[in-house]
């Protein structure tokens, strides 16, 4: 393993842990698909930042993506609050229209610039080959900051996710906590863009969280397991992508997460398929033997 691969691996693990952690809260608060909308809405920001700032340094591009996501969220909010459009229709519309705008702008960048734009398309499916140490320090640093924020606001986030009514009667401003959660989700998506790509970064916030749900009933362990799953899938995806030329890392990371998910769905104690099967069989045997109270 070269020094660069090691650095990228470290960044990938931090990213996976962050997405698993933020995703758990998002899934519990029923915002799972918001991450998908955000990720697609980020696309126009990349060519826009490239055109305005005239370069493709990662901080500038990611800032553009962040701004673009915020524009998408404002449009979504306006659609939902000011018109009678339903949540899910507004989500789908913002997702697809912003993505369309992104494609239009990407094509425009291809037309106007003479080379040097080649990096932008790799944001669609994710690519780790071109990442340098400074990029990793940036994404890794952002991931660490987010994790610290989660640790600080842990109590509030937990209350709002499980019992928003009680949280607000206990003096917690649910609106602010939701805004914090949205902000964290935006950051997780933005951090994930270079490695996992626009199309699949949302999967990294959803799959580890739902997989962790098979193993535990309480939040603390769920966060730990989801983070571990996220980090493992990112690391696996990055390693395979580095060894296979031309393989985008995004789908590989998602499939690694899918593997962990399938393992959890089958073999988790109590909730897994095997455990439930065994329980059912035991029940059936007990019933046949007449040892079961009706």
């Amino acid at each position: 393993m070269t020094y660069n691969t090691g650095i990228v691996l470290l960044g990938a693990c931090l990213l996976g842990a962050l997405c698993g952690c933020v995703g758990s809260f998002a899934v519990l608060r029923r915002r799972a698909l918001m991450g998908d909308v955000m990720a697609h809405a980020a696309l126009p920001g990349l060519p826009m930042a490239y055109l305005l700032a005239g370069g493709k340094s990662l901080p500038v591009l990611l800032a553009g993506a962040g701004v673009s996501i915020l524009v998408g969220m404002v449009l979504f909010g306006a659609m939902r609050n000011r018109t009678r459009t339903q949540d899910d229709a507004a989500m789908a519309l913002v997702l697809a229209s912003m993505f369309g705008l992104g494609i239009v702008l990407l094509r425009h960048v291809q037309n106007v610039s003479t080379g040097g734009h080649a990096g932008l398309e790799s944001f669609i499916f994710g690519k780790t080959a071109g990442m340098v140490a400074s990029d990793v320090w940036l994404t890794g640093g952002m991931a660490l900051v987010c994790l610290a924020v989660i640790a600080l606001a842990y109590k509030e986030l937990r209350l709002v996710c499980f019992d928003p009514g009680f949280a607000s009667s206990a003096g917690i401003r649910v609106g602010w906590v939701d805004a914090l959660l949205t902000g964290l989700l935006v950051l997780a998506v933005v951090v994930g863009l270079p490695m996992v790509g626009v199309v699949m970064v949302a999967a990294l916030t959803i799959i580890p969280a739902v997989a962790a749900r098979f193993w535990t009933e309480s939040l603390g362990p769920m966060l730990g397991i989801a983070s571990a799953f996220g980090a493992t899938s990112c690391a696996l995806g990055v390693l395979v992508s580095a060894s296979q030329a031309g393989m985008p890392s995004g789908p590989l990371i998602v499939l690694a997460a899918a593997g962990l998910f399938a393992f959890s769905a089958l073999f988790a104690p109590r909730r897994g398929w095997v455990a439930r099967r065994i329980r059912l069989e035991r029940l059936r045997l007990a019933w046949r033997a007449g040892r079961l109270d009706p």
Partner: protein
Amino acid sequence: MASGEVGSLNEIHVWTVVVASTCSLACAWVGVWLVLQRVSMIGDAISHSVLPGLVVSFLVFGTRAPAPMFLGAAVAGLATTYLTRSISSATGAKEDSSMGVVFTVLFAFGVLLITRFARQIDLDPGCVLYGLLEFVALDTRAVLGLEVPRVMETLVPALILTGGLLTLFRKEVLLMAFDPGLARTLGYRPGAVYYGLMALVAVVTVASFEAVGSILVIAMLIGPAVAANLWSRDWRSMFAIASVVAVGSSVVGYALAVATNTSVAGMMAVVVGFACGLAALVSPAGGVLQRMARLRSAKATIAAEDLLANAYRDLERSGRSHRLDDRALVARGWSDGANLTPLGLTEARRLVRGHRLVETYLVVDVGRSPEEVHESAHRAEHLLDAIQRAELLRELDSPHSDPHGSPIPREPEA
């Protein structure tokens, strides 16, 4: 030779617009139901997850013929809905989370297959996302002596299938969208209708796949329906409006894309988004501008009514007679207080009568003290009509004065 080239260029323009319109029409018709049933994001999920179905079916059958492609897509679409429900019931996870798991994994699998078998499939992962509408008109087949783009072979059957099924099962789908409870009571099978609709989404997505790709197809599915829903509440006119928006955004999107030399499907998605924004602003059924105008006119009405009622009370106190001038509500001559014309007097009587009846009602029937009822009556006076005033009068046994001792004016003739 030169004229032949111009002719073929025109032909390409026309055929591209025809392909775009056909595919967005089919999408829009299905989309109206998705939006009415509030399952738009399931359309998003299915449009992603048909990809592996498509690729596997191509790898197995080795052909792009419509039948195997539709089959693979329908299987993938149904698998998505089925797996989503199974994961939800196993984990207790919300339906949207399990949907997020299923479609992203299937999509990732499809993208990987395409990357791996790129040479056999001749599709690059990029056009999976945003289609190749620019090039569909170049790949033609002769049908009845006419050179027709190959994708029409799948698009036209898909359009006919969609239109046919939605017409045939109009009643069932309509009932499902507006009253699933009643549908169940009447013995229809909501599950069957639901899965049928999902299979239709899969078929339409696959047919549109080469033209607009799997993400931009969501704009064609949901956008026209959202715009139509903003414009009308009647499902028939929703269909008409969605069709117009679909075809219109295909034409406008294509023209803009050619003018700016960018992706046609991307531009169509942007135009659809703008159409929805426009509908949200200027719709005559609850658009932002209309609501603003209504609010402003309500504010102006209330201010004018308050002015009239105050002028009436002023007149009542001073005992002056009113000047006759029926062109205005409040006559000129403010030096000794306002004066009312007959028209104004009628309006003012109506308002003050309502105000004092409500005050009486609040004191006599509700039991509040006379000092605190003015504010409530002040708000209610703008909302009462003649029938409500008559009902109040009956309820209160025709009082002559309000709790403050002021006479209640008689009801003016209509």
